């Protein structure tokens, strides 16, 4: 074998070599140093970005890493997020309009998602007539402006056709996860409007980089221990 271990190894496909590869890889991985301070900062950034105020305050106390902003500024974002997660869409929109009055004029797609969620809440409470009126008054305009939303709108309105929307094929819209999705979208938009460094947490960015790097290696057909379960940090057995 020549220099540059990995590349030459990939040419030989025998089982022994794969094990050797994995060992070498994990060995080198173990040698990589990530300073604690870096990890702490990543966690803090995640907490602040996602709006976990209390957790951020505690973490600040326990780890000593500074949040670098006044955590009370998070209150606005947190209130909006909480409102959305509780299904109180009118309140959420009102709060958002107080915080950033130009946002929904400039980002009609975001507005659509908020209004869509309002519609979903009406459907959830089986206020069918109100739902139809709401759809006609507000969502029709969204559909006219942007054809992208038509498909999503169709799915939402389709819920009304079912006796029991919770068991329809579109029931995912009624889940709490959907509220969560809208809340995240709003959160990101607010961060952008506040000229934050990034609307995404750096932790998310790092993971994206990991996924991308793995995809690049796959394209070049390099064999390596692939991390398949990001949340658990588990590697796949290279077969």
């Amino acid at each position, binding site marked *: 074998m020549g220099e540059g271990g990995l590349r030459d190894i990939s040419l030989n496909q025998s089982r022994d070599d794969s094990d050797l590869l994995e060992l070498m890889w994990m060995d080198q991985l173990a040698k990589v140093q990530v300073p604690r301070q870096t990890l702490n900062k990543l966690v803090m950034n995640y907490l602040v970005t996602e709006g976990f105020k209390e957790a951020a305050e505690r973490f600040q106390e326990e780890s000593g890493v500074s949040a670098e902003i006044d955590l009370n500024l998070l209150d606005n974002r947190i209130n909006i997020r909480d409102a959305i997660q509780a299904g109180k869409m*009118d309140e959420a*929109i*009102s709060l958002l*309009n107080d915080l950033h*009055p*130009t946002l*929904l*004029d*400039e980002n*009609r797609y975001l*507005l659509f998602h908020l209004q869509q969620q309002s519609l979903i809440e009406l459907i959830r409470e089986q206020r069918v007539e109100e739902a139809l009126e709401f759809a006609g008054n*507000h969502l029709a*305009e969204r*559909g*006219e*402006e942007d*054809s992208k939303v038509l498909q999503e709108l169709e799915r939402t309105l389709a819920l009304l056709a079912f006796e029991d929307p919770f068991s329809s094929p579109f029931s995912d819209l009624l889940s709490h996860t959907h509220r969560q999705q809208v809340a995240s979208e709003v959160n990101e938009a607010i961060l952008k409007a506040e*000229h934050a460094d990034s609307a995404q947490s750096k932790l998310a960015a790092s993971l994206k980089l990991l996924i991308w790097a793995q995809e690049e290696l796959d394209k070049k057909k390099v064999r390596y221990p692939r991390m398949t379960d990001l949340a658990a940090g588990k590697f796949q057995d290279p077969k």
Partner: protein
Amino acid sequence: MVCGNMEVEVPRSTWDKLYDPQPEKVAIAVKSLKNCIIGSKKQKEQIVEQGLLARLVNLLVEPDINPRVKTNVVQIFGSISKGSELTAKSLSDAGVVKILLNGLVNTEPQLTEACLLSLVSIFDSKETSIEVIYSDPAIISHLLSLMPHSTNSSVAVCRLLTKGCESLDHQNILLNSGTPKSICEVLSSPVPVAQLCALQCLAAMVYKNENAAHVYLSTSAQGKSLMGHIVFYTGREHQEEIQLEASRILTYMYRCGVFEEDGLIVFQVLPCLVRLCKKEERVVNRILAAETLAYLIEIDVELQQIAAISNHLICTTASFLRWEPDHRQKASGMSRVQMNKLTQQLEKEADQAKQLRKAAFHVFASLSANDEEIRKRLIETEPVVQSVVGALQDSDEDVVMSAIRCLHSLSRSVQLLRTTFQDHTVWEPLMKILSSPASKVESVLVASSTLCNLLLDFSPSKEKILDSGAVELLCELTRKYDPSLRLNGVWGLMNLSFNSEQRIKSQIMTTLGTDQVFRLLSDTEIQVVMKTLGLLRNLLSNEKHHIDTITSLYGKQLMQAVVFILESENSHEVKEQALCMLANIANGDTSKKLIVDNEDVLKKLKSYMLHNNTNLQTAAVVCIQNLIWREEEGSCDRQAKLKDIGVFNILNQLKTAEDSVLKEKVKMALDQASM
């Protein structure tokens, strides 16, 4: 109920509460209204239609209303301005702008900021003129004082000032109001949006304003220099838009001549602009980068040469001419609104294609202005020449203008004139532009300059141009008010007459007329006079019988012209031209009589032979030489006459002249003497 001068019916809508006597109910109604209209174009229009603007204005103006409510009202106005041109106009008509400007001096920071942001929205519309911010000097200085309050404020003020900076006067007003320091402070912001807005503002303020450029050059704030910031922002770690604006500012300042090039332009600004022209960049950036680049290198041949070999610039720019927007899927069954949107999109793309072509022609015009090698490379690059020629007939004036400029630069190439321009009938569209009464002065000027080049004798298109009425056209130009046009007219005629046939020379004289010749000789522009004399010299050149024909028709007037110039207050250069003309007349056969029989002219010749300027002396001697040329009929008589008046004595005196050229001519003349 009447509010202001608008009659408003009590609305039967949900907005009754806006008129409620209880302030809490009003506050709730305002909040509700705000939530209703944000995001909905229809609602904005409805509010305006229902005449609620007057009530809202009232709420702002009344002193007892809670600032929180006022803030909401201001935000409502901001939102309404984002509706349509119509709703924006209604705001303007309701006097909202003035009120918001007054609102800026409020002590409530939230309200003030809301006013700022709404003003930015309102001025975005074409319907509202931003001139109003100059109506009171306090407004500008107050805007500047608001900048440090927050990032949003700095961004808003920068946007307002950028929009409002439309003329030299504006630039100077802003300069003297303390803008330099304020902008410098904003440039220290860590927020990219603020950095970009500040840079855009600065670019607007230094464009073609040497005085402003000087001031900004030496500005600093909080220990950091403005120039330091700008150079920093050309770095590649920043967004493309920021790099572009920084490069633009440096380009403008450099063109104003406020700093010497020591590597900043060649190694930072120019490469940056070239890079931002590439396909990967957004179209708006490509256009701006190209236009800026064209301006940067416009008058500097070294920069042109560097640019021509930078990063495939020529290929990249040529690709501007072939740009097409991304293919879009056509959705079936589109609503009216969607149809409108699509139409808007298509119009926008057509405009972008046009802007790209203009920018490309500007770059090419600058690149090929001074260097023949570059011109050659350009004409070999597809589809440059055919695009330029095609664009001469474009429906858009600006595109035509940019193509003419490009053509003008290219027409300075002898090789091109002899070859390519024959293959492509460039002269046709040019003649069209020149003969159209609707053409702008600028177009006519550049087109006529180009035509002058095309009329040089070795140009194969010369004949065709003549056939389509070039002489009349050029003569017409000599009568124009604009001196540059007159110059081009006479220059064109001069080029046309060089080495040309008798019929052309006659045509010129007939069409121009001797009266016009005299007018041109008395022109206030010295260049016009010089070129007219040049024209006359050309007419009196080449073959003897040309000279004789012309002098037989216009001899008297031509002699009058010579005398006129020689007796005028003009410089030596001009008089030299007149003497050369005389020498040409002396070259003919029958025309010699005109001089020899003219006592006054002979006297003048004698005095010029003894003039202290050697060029004038030489010209006079050459004239004498032509008169006494031995081989020509009547030479003896002429020599005798000249001897009588002492010309040969003077020649003998001049034998010992210091100037070698003069000495040689004197020798040649004396050699002609048969005695």
